[in-house]
């Protein structure tokens, strides 16, 4: 089995395809996450409502709400990315057949696309329900992409660690929040700038820095987590 780049890429693609095929069959993560995001959205908008937050604070408070909703949606759907493999003993077959780095990239791609789906649904709804005008749509989109990337990368790595421990759901929250919160603060800053709330101009560059560091460290660390 030569380790050419193309076979590595097809391995990662195979993992990605398998993840989505299993997901669409069981619809486990998708349902949980979308239901979760939607109910939180409704709750928040009912509680706060367009008039609930006075206009001055809107541009600073609402971005925080958006990202909290996205964070909790991620925490609902992403931790099982590796957990179900260990529980159902399919992890042994994967350890025998897959290259760790390709496996991680396939799983990361799945988390990214799943999270993109969450954002694609939640963000527009949030803006509509909150009637929040966006001054710089391009920057807003960039923040969603970069914030989503960081969230997915960190969650996938923590999911790999938690996959092999007891009491996974609580452990995932405990382990992932301190990793995700700095990213969240950056994303909120950048979102404020995008919505026109001013400030946080260089948050985008810090987001890129955090995402890159998180992705590189995850790739290097995953073999140590995955191999016995």
């Amino acid at each position: 089995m030569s380790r050419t780049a193309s076979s590595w890429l097809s391995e990662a693609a195979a993992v990605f395809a398998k993840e989505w095929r299993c997901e669409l069959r069981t619809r486990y993560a998708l349902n949980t996450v979308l239901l979760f995001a939607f109910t939180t959205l409704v709750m928040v908008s009912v509680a706060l409502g367009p008039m609930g937050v006075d206009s001055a604070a809107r541009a600073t408070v609402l971005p925080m709400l958006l990202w909290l909703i996205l964070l909790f949606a991620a925490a609902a759907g992403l931790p099982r990315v590796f957990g179900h493999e260990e529980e159902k003993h399919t992890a042994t077959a994967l350890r025998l057949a897959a290259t760790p780095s390709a496996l991680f990239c396939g799983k990361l791609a799945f988390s990214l696309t799943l999270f993109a789906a969450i954002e694609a649904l939640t963000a527009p709804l949030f803006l509509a329900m909150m009637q929040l005008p966006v001054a710089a749509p391009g920057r807003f989109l960039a923040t969603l992409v970069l914030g989503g990337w960081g969230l997915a990368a960190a969650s996938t790595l923590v999911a790999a660690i938690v996959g092999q421990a007891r009491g996974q759901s609580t452990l995932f929250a405990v382990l992932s929040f301190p990793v995700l919160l700095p990213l969240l603060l950056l994303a909120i800053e950048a979102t404020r700038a995008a919505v026109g709330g001013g400030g946080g101009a260089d948050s985008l560059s810090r987001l890129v820095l955090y995402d890159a560091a998180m992705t590189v460290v995850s790739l290097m660390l995953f073999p140590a987590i995955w191999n016995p």
Partner: protein
Amino acid sequence: MPATTLLEFSGVVRAFGRLRVLGGVSGRVAPGTVLAVTGPNGSGKSTLLKCLAGLLAPDAGRIDYREEGVTLDTATRRRRVGFLSPDLALYEELTVEENLHFFCRLRALPASRGGELRERVGLPATRRCGALSSGMRQRLRWAFALLHRPRLLLLDEPLEHFDAGGVELARDLLGEHLAGGGLAVVANPSRLELPHVADRLELAL
């Protein structure tokens, strides 16, 4: 068959917490032969096979596996061996064909290889693994283990859930593997009645 292909392990120790499951086990398997590992439940058969497969790091001891004179490190060995065990499972929500196709892609094998083995072990293509009987699941494990034509087979309880037909299939598959110069370590091979058993390893509690 040149002896450049050989599995040798010596002084393999493995404990779980303070429970010492393997206390310095040794053995040697040459091409075309089988090492039969027997012993009561909990004597460490599965643990030994997992260590040999590289799925479990031994606390002490040496595992040396050479293929055509090239010694393989643990990570390479793990992906070259054919491993079968009762707690190995494939994806319930995927069909037999999709499962085998997935592992063919992981191992950079043509999809036809999956189909070929599926027919050899007699499994329907489009049934979901979740809906397979335990005997059929065991046949699928054999297909998974032989998918990439491994030189070394590590079989833990290979006949579990098998009826007479299953035992017949296992004997043929293992016979072909050994005739082709393959090596095998088999735990609890009682009903296999293998002529090729060259060596026995009795594990005590």
